């Protein structure tokens, strides 16, 4: 909670604060980790972070944990749809303001 608050209000989404390439693709899915807790997110630069879901990682890789695997897949799907909409110009990322249509 404290880390999310600091990311939102003080640090920004600095890349080194996250575990990257969590879904194995070259997409914006990253993980915020704290010991063996994982919160999967979509990160766009240092300014946008979409929080997803997560859980406790008991296994060496998330793929070995069906629950976590599902949550990563969901964020990968969200990232893919956002990318499609950015390509289709339905979503624009500007410094201010941000225009989103996030209903999938």
């Amino acid at each position, binding site marked *: *909670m404290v880390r999310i608050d600091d990311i939102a209000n003080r640090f920004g989404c600095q890349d080194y*604060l996250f575990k990257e390439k969590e879904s194995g693709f070259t997409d914006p899915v990253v993980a915020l980790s704290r010991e063996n807790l994982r919160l999967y997110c979509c990160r766009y630069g240092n300014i946008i972070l979409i929080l997803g879901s997560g859980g406790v990682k008991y296994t060496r890789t998330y793929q070995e944990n069906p629950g976590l695997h599902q949550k990563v897949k969901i964020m990968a799907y969200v990232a893919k749809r956002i990318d499609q909409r950015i390509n289709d110009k339905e979503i624009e990322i500007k410094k201010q303001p941000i225009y989103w249509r996030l209903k999938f």
Partner: protein
Amino acid sequence: MKENKNNSTLFDQLLSKVPSDVKRFVRKQGEIAVQIGTILKAKGITQKELAQKIGMKESQLSKILAGNANCTLKTITKIENALNEDIITVPIFREDFAPDVIVDTAAKSLLDKKFKVRKFSLGEEVYVDRDEIYAGK
């Protein structure tokens, strides 16, 4: 986010339940991570290079940079030495000592090689070159 009648979000309510010492600890971990990360980027040093320089496993350094490590003072000073920059500074206060200058380092000032100087008594902010401070001006 779900809001209640007092206009605080669910997130704010949960955050307020975190013990203050835990908040302070997690914040400090994040601040140290961001300070190191900022210096690395400013100096164009990779994590791998820094890890090699201080004789640390890359995975261990990655944990520090993720803000998840409980660094010893020894580790922090090793990193400071390798980067030739302060990661943490400790203000020195004495009962009979009233400083008229407090020197902060901010990420931006590292790039400019200047310090942001705040006049303690007046609350006025000026930028002063580091060499001028050491020259006692």
